[in-house]
């Protein structure tokens, strides 16, 4: 869809929601004329408009996004220790996992530890071995 067509559709939507439900259909028919695609899209939008439908999927988006934000930020939770090492800070992260700076007690030294989530696949294990 190009922006002009989209903006026309949005304008019709805004006028449509000002109307009572029985009048909406006639309004859409009149405005869309032969344009079936526009009519279909508009009717879909009206169907999903929150004020007219109780179980709109976007109603759940807000809580979904909140949960998603929590999960995303949870990835930055710093573990206190990994095995015998005390974790100091995160050095970096990517598709293959997270790298932490950590400290070993005996002998006293700093190390970098890479944590790979769920060493599930043979492929991941193979890539990690290659990196090492």
């Amino acid at each position, binding site marked *: *869809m190009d*922006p002009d067509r*989209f*903006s026309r559709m*949005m304008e019709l*939507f*805004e006028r449509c*929601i000002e109307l009572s439900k029985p009048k909406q259909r006639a309004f859409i028919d009149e405005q869309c004329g032969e344009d079936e695609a526009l009519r279909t*899209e508009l009717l*879909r*939008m*009206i*169907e*999903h*408009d*929150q*004020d007219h439908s109780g179980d*709109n*999927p*976007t109603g*759940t*988006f*807000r809580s*979904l*996004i*909140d*949960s*998603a*934000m*929590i*999960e*995303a*930020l*949870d*990835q*930055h*939770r*710093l573990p206190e220790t990994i095995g015998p090492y005390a974790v100091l800070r*995160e050095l970096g992260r*990517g*598709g293959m996992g997270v790298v932490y700076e950590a400290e070993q007690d005996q002998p006293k030294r700093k190390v970098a530890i890479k944590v790979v*989530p*769920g060493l*599930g*696949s043979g*492929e*991941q294990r193979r890539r990690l071995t290659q990196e090492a």
Partner: protein
Amino acid sequence: MKDRDTPQPDTEGLFTVVYDELRRLAQSWWRDQVPGQTLQPTALVHEAYMKIAKSDTPTKNQEHFRAVAAKAMRHALIEHFRTKNSLKRGSGHRSSVTLTGIESNGQLDPVMILALDEAIRELEQLDERKARVVEMRYFAGMQDDEIARVLDVTDRTVRTDWRAARAWLSSRLAQEGEDGS
């Protein structure tokens, strides 16, 4: 947005500062957390503002700050779910869109989150202002009047934009769910 992955130049510096601060706050939040207490993303954004505003980083005002924070949050979210999705695919699990966004094992479905982001990107191309309204509402929990001040429009415009954008996003994702694409 002109570029799909980078924030606007005038907000870029602030974006980086906010993004780092959100991550730092999230780290310390889990370190100090009280059992049973849940993390509120919007509270985190507010806390980041309090910290950064104090440290003299130039911020025009709190609303502008939160608009940037919304972008940072969205970025963090997508980064995480892209990784999650690629790990999932790597492990051979078949992915399909679930309309609720929750998988049978109770985990958040990365495909759903990424589909939502994709739909917002599409909206950015079609009507940038509506996309920004969605971003500020969803990712920083901003109210109509706050968004109106950032965009320099009336509250009523924000309300209409929001309602139209939500109906459009919703019908868009419902179609994807039906198509199984």
